[in-house]
């Protein structure tokens, strides 16, 4: 074998090893999760576990419905809050920002992503939650509290600022840089000539962004939103601080609640055997939910 072929082979093995190690890690995690949650699977079944709202230590009866609902609601609300801001940031940076400012604004956003999540959690606990409790919750309750059917979800029924809304706001701030930087990359990839031809027809800046920049970057933005959703579903520390950790019915968005990760963080240390297995089972459910979201998103992106 000549040296060129050897070099090629070595290169193939090195990159192949990198790729394979990722697959093995994911597979390993999946196997561990299945093995550890097996007692729980045997005891609670699949459908029953997913639909059960139980979280009873005495009866050792555990269900995933509330933590999964909490995780999904918090993630969706976080994405809904962060996306408009992130898009604004991305469009500002690529289309409007004076060149001198660009670097520092972009840096500020990247730094936001570098703050440890425990800091966000503590800030949420000591600053954001009291603030929301004092000013935001009464306001929302006043404005939306009397809407028929859904009004109750906007009333504060349990005192305190530690609740689902606070958690999703913290999450929103945390995923903002992800969506913003992926969207910014998408906007930056729109060819200059395409924008120029819109300007060349007499389009204003805003018209150009709407007709050309936004449609061309849509896919990248969707990708960013999906990645951010995945991250929001899995985020732990910040959420564990501010979600309130209460296994109870969700009577209001301003009620303390649970998410998959907050339950794990709070209960893992002191869990009995079957509870431990239920925690692994929860993780498995979240893992599969995330997989489902990712594959749906991929299909969606391919089609458009």
């Amino acid at each position, binding site marked *: 074998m000549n040296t060129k072929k050897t070099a090629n082979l070595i290169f193939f093995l090195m990159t192949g090893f990198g790729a394979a190690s990722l697959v093995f890690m994911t597979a390993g995690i999946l196997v561990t999760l299945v093995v550890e949650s097996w007692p729980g699977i045997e005891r609670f079944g699949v459908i029953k576990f997913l639909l059960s709202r139980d979280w009873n230590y005495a009866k050792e009866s555990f269900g995933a419905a509330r933590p999964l609902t909490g995780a999904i609601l918090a993630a969706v609300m976080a994405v809904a809050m962060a996306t408009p801001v992130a898009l604004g940031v991305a469009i500002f940076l690529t289309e409007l920002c*004076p060149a001198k400012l660009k670097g520092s604004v972009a840096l500020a956003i990247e730094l936001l992503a570098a703050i440890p999540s425990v800091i966000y959690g503590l800030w949420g606990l000591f600053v954001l939650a009291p603030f929301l409790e004092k000013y935001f919750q009464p306001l929302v309750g006043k404005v939306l509290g009397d809407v028929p059917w859904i009004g109750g979800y906007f009333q504060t029924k349990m005192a305190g600022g530690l609740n689902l809304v606070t958690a999703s706001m913290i999450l929103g701030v945390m995923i903002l840089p992800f969506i913003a930087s992926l969207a910014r990359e998408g906007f930056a990839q729109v060819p200059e000539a395409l924008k*120029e*031809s*819109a*300007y*060349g027809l*007499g389009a204003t800046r805003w018209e150009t962004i709407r*007709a050309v920049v936004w*449609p061309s970057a849509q896919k990248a933005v969707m990708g960013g939103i999906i990645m951010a959703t995945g991250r929001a579903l899995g985020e732990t520390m910040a959420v564990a601080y501010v979600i309130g950790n209460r296994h109870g019915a969700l009577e209001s968005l301003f009620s303390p609640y649970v998410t998959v990760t907050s339950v794990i963080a709070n209960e893992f240390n002191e869990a009995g055997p079957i509870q431990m297995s239920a925690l692994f089972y929860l993780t498995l459910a979240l893992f599969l939910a995330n997989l489902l979201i990712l594959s749906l998103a991929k299909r969606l992106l391919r089609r458009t």
Partner: protein
Amino acid sequence: MEPSKAPQELLRVDKLRFYFGAHQVLKDVELPIWGNSITSLIGPSGCGKTTLLRCFNRMHDLYPNNHYEGRILMEGRNILDKNEDLIELRSQLGMVFQKPTPFPMSVYDNIAYGLKLKKITNKPLVRELVEKALRQANLWEEVKDRLRENALGLSGGQQQRLSIARSLAVSPAVLLFDEATSALDPISSAKIEEMMVELKKQVTMVVVTHNMQQAARVSDYTALMWLGELVEHGETTEIFTRPKKKMTERYVAGHFG
């Protein structure tokens, strides 16, 4: 509008200097653009011909740290004036780029887009103008059954004619071509050249090209640029057969560039 017999001066470049930052790219360029004709700008890479072309519709204003000195006169007014309405100006001077630039929307919407910008929304009228523009760009027969399809599905040559049709739909006085055929195959280029000659009835064209045969074939006037200066300008036949300057003679004979 009947084209008058005697050529009319539509644009006049008057002592134009253009700077990217401190770097001077155009040096006292003087050039008339005659109405209902095609003027080619030729010259080696980096000579400033594209920079000059992009002065006509003030494309340089999209980027910071550029500035103009001198004038470009259009109907007596200086379009380089800083109070010039660029939105209005650009709808009067359309531009076609090197690579086709279809917008990510349907064939029909691509053409209708410029009309929408001009607040022309009456449906039958828009339909009529879209068809007219596509016919002018020799594209109608090929796309009349796929008007609702995404324009990105057209071939490169069709996309370029679509870009031209889109510019034509807003009935500009001038069309600026920035090496508009250099990315296309010979057959597609030939179709566009044919169309350009047809279009002279309605619109004045300024064409930047690397392809000297193309300049000789389609244009009525040719201007040679070199290092930011205008070397020579005149009727195309004169420039190619009896150039006044030695440099022009050498350039058109292919000795440099």
